């Protein structure tokens, strides 16, 4: 008897709490629209101040919240996808890497944004930043920062950075012979997306093409495609790059370059700010240029992160408001000055005051002009996966460059065919 009395009391209490919280929730929802974006951790940290500003400006109106995701791009993508697959995504928008967009759009997860951004808005973007925001005729993404592959070099070791692949090898070898550095060039050789980025710059730089998405023409086993792979493999064979580069991501390459072990490094713009910190052994001795290439073929892999709104969000207008704020000129300046994130608005890139304070911005701008996106297809994850797999076999000596790139081309073809993209 006492037992049931007790249970009844608990149930009653729970009931009251439930009603109260529901009522409270409704009252809250009516007055303030709360919008949440999922971002990779570095961006979530970098935008903290901006979010605070936004919430102050829109007090009582919109409350913006940033959900802090993991730090690695691939882990971030896995997280976003599993949230979306689970059904109700716990956020309204997503800060998205340029390569995810076609897949997400094809899966029907994205809200088209062309009604919210005009032609003039688009024209205000730097040329490289206009790429990779649309799929199938719809605009889905608004770029927040531009990322492009860059070649970092040591200004204390050379007057001029090399421009062609051969020059890079020569400079490295002579520096190594003089015992100035342990290694010539460090880059991303682990089997993951970063390796595709490294390779894209080279296949384009040797005058080839990875995949033409309009005609589905595969260039991996063409002459430039094989040359690019062979060059990377040769770096390891000739001792220009350490053997361990086959397990390097961005962090490992940066670590090696930062302590002064290497003369060159391929990395993204964020590394610049890192190399200027006080614990950097190469502080003040670093220059930036575009990746080495055959004359006239200079490219930089476009990395770029942009904001999107998920289909089914009940706060589209408020989300757009937040996106506009986070990608505004002031916001971009702030992100660049404090965190080194390179801007996407042409006006910011050309800002004379900014250029005077941070001359490095000019280099970012130059690289962004030649930035190329990776193949824009919903099957990108698969085709990049087969590419990195074969490249990794080549780099570790499991396959010859010809053989590996032939297999990569055949696998790519198979993927396109079984998806019905190709007869």
């Amino acid at each position, binding site marked *: 008897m006492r037992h049931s009395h007790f249970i009844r009391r608990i149930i009653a209490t729970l009931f009251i709490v439930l009603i109260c919280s529901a009522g409270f929730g409704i009252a809250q929802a009516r007055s303030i629209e709360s919008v949440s974006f999922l971002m990779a951790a570095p961006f979530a940290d970098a935008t903290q101040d901006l979010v605070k500003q936004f919430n102050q400006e829109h007090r009582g109106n919109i409350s913006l919240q940033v959900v802090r995701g993991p730090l690695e791009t691939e882990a971030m993508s896995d*997280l976003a996808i599993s*949230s979306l697959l689970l059904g109700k995504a716990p956020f309204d928008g997503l800060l998205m890497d340029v390569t995810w967009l076609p897949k997400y759009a094809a899966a029907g997860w994205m809200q088209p944004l062309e009604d919210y951004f005009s032609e003039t808005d688009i024209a205000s973007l730097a040329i490289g930043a206009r790429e990779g925001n649309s799929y199938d005729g719809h605009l889905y993404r608004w770029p927040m920062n531009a990322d492009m592959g860059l070649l970092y070099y040591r200004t204390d070791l050379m007057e001029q950075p090399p421009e062609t692949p051969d020059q890079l090898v020569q400079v490295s070898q002579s520096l190594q012979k003089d015992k100035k550095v342990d290694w010539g060039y460090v880059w991303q050789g682990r089997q993951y997306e970063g390796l595709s980025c490294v390779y894209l710059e080279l296949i384009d730089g040797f005058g080839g093409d990875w995949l033409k998405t309009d005609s589905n023409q595969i260039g991996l086993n063409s002459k430039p495609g094989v040359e690019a792979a062979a060059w990377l493999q040769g770096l390891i064979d000739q001792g220009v790059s350490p053997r361990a580069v086959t397990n390097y991501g961005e*962090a490992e390459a940066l670590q090696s370059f930062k302590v002064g072990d290497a003369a060159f490094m391929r990395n993204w713009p964020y590394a610049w700010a890192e190399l200027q910190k006080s614990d950097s052994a190469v502080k003040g001795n670093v220059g930036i240029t575009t990746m080495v290439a055959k004359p006239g073929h200079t490219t930089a892999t476009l990395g770029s992160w942009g904001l999107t709104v998920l289909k089914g969000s009940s706060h589209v207008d408020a989300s757009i408001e937040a996106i506009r704020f986070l990608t505004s000129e002031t916001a971009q300046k702030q992100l660049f000055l404090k965190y080194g994130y390179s801007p996407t608005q042409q006006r910011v890139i050309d800002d004379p005051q900014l250029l005077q304070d941070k001359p490095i911005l000019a280099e970012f701008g130059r690289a962004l002009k030649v930035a190329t996106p990776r193949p824009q297809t919903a099957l990108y994850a698969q085709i990049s996966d087969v590419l990195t797999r074969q490249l990794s076999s080549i780099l570790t000596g499991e396959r010859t460059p010809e053989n590996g790139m032939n297999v990569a081309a055949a696998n790519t073809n198979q993927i396109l065919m079984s998806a019905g993209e190709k007869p």
Partner: protein
Amino acid sequence: MNRRTLVGLLLLWSLGPLLWQVYTSFCSDQALIQPFVSHDQRWTLIHYQSVLNANPPFWRYLVNSLIVGISSTFLCLLLALPAAYALNRIPRQLSALSRLALVGAALFPYVLLFLALLELARALNLGNQLLALSLPYAALSQPLAILLLNNAFNDLPPELEDAAKLEGLSLFQRFRWIFIPLISPATASTAILVFLFSWNEYPIALTWISDSSKLTLPVAMARIAGSSIYSVPYGAYAAATVLGSIPLVLLVLIFQKPIVSGLTSGAVKG
């Protein structure tokens, strides 16, 4: 080789990697990269600070895992106890067949279920709910639990139940006053094994939980694997592995008897 060397080797093999993590977790980043150079700041607590002050803080994952572990264990036992009892009271052939099926299910590499379970979570809206995880966990540990408990029921003398029936005890009363106390050692072993499984499970938690404040420890650990793009953050990893290991090391030290008897009783009965 004498026994002492062998025991030493065994301990080195079992505990060496853990001790290395402990050592790493107290080393400053500089000392990790250049181990043979003397540093003014070799030892540091900074890794622990960064892990504990992260957002969400590390203990949150421990609490989450604890919640999932306890609720799964409870649910699993709630279903397995009656089933294990009933298994002896159905026709002999049917019972043998069920036991065979249970062995098969216990052996099943459950990782392969992830996709179907993900769909289940989506269909029933179970994603991102800690307590919902106990459903698959209870189900996955069910075969082993039923088998272990069934062994325990088998060991009870059959006269016991007859006597209890003559006393006029109902089924529930028999359970409450006779069986539960008598098989409590087996129940404890089963409970701790189920708890360990739920605490350690990875693929399902990975697909069912995406909200970072609801992650269980194993998934959080895997996510920490990408915790910094700026340098190789092995000091912080090590601090996290040490913090994540402590509860389990304690668990093993305290409960080693029921764990061992649980693991071996299945085999002993074979």
